[in-house]
């Protein structure tokens, strides 16, 4: 299936969960927020949330910031 992760199209295996996706991207679930088709997930749902063809996934985290630049 095709999914879009942070604006980038990717081919993914069927029945991929959010937790598995984070794993393949070497991201730690406790350091990120995940939004799927504009819905923000609870961290507890990462493990069992199945991704679907066409899902638009945003993965965000904290970066250095001020006072913005």
């Amino acid at each position, binding site marked *: 299936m095709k999914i879009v*992760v*942070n*604006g*980038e199209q990717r081919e993914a295996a069927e029945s991929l969960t959010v937790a598995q996706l984070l794993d393949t*991207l*070497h*991201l*730690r679930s406790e*350091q*990120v*927020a*995940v*939004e799927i088709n504009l819905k*923000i*997930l*609870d*961290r507890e749902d990462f493990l069992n949330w199945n991704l679907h063809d066409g899902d638009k996934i*945003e*993965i*965000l*985290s*904290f*970066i*250095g*910031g*001020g*006072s*913005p*630049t």
Partner: protein
Amino acid sequence: MNQDPLLIAGRTFHSRLWVGTGKYQNFEETRKAIEASGADVVTVAVRRVNITDNKSENLLDYLDPKKYTVLPNTAGCYTVEDAVRYSRLARAAGVSDLVKLEVIGDERTLFPDTAGLIEAAKILIAEGFVVLPYTNDDPIVAKKLVDIGCPAVMPLAAPIGSGLGIRNPYNLKIIMETVNVPVIVDAGVGTASDAALAMEYGADAVLMNTAIAGAKDPLMMATAMRYAVDAGRLAYKAGRIPRKLYATASSPIEGML
């Protein structure tokens, strides 16, 4: 200074200098500068993670959660919708309901859109967020933000990153006299004397990023800011002498030949 804690929404902070984490060369420099500043509140931004570089590190690995309160901001948000969305993402990415709310009105000045700010604050407070709003040096807006439930206000000293220092000390003083919550002067500080002045005026804390990160020696400036904020706070509490036009001798006349 631990006998003089800062209380906001049931939380206790021991440093009155808060710092941003942007514009540093790397995370190690960020960590060292924060440590030198003595700050226990650090602001961060929320952005897409780098999914192409597996080795990219996370800022959170450099911020001991036992030492620091991470305060996410909504920097870069120009609409109420974006500010609300980023606040929710920040809450999902982190561990607390704290947000430094910014709704930016204009790219050139980065001044807040105060109408949008109040609207976004209302939405987020209803959702249980603890909203610390980055606002203009406008006492009326500050009052409105407190009235809708903000437990502190963060008026600017000058445009973000400008280093101009406090442009309108009288408005800041009016804000401090108008609201019954902590006032944190945010943005525009250029050097140590600016931070000391803000504290001498009666600010409860000062938040800065560029003044430290952009200095030739960020670690040294972080230390300078720490002393400046402490000095300003102590001077405020000690109570300065009144200004007089003419001299008053401090050595006695008595006993002179």
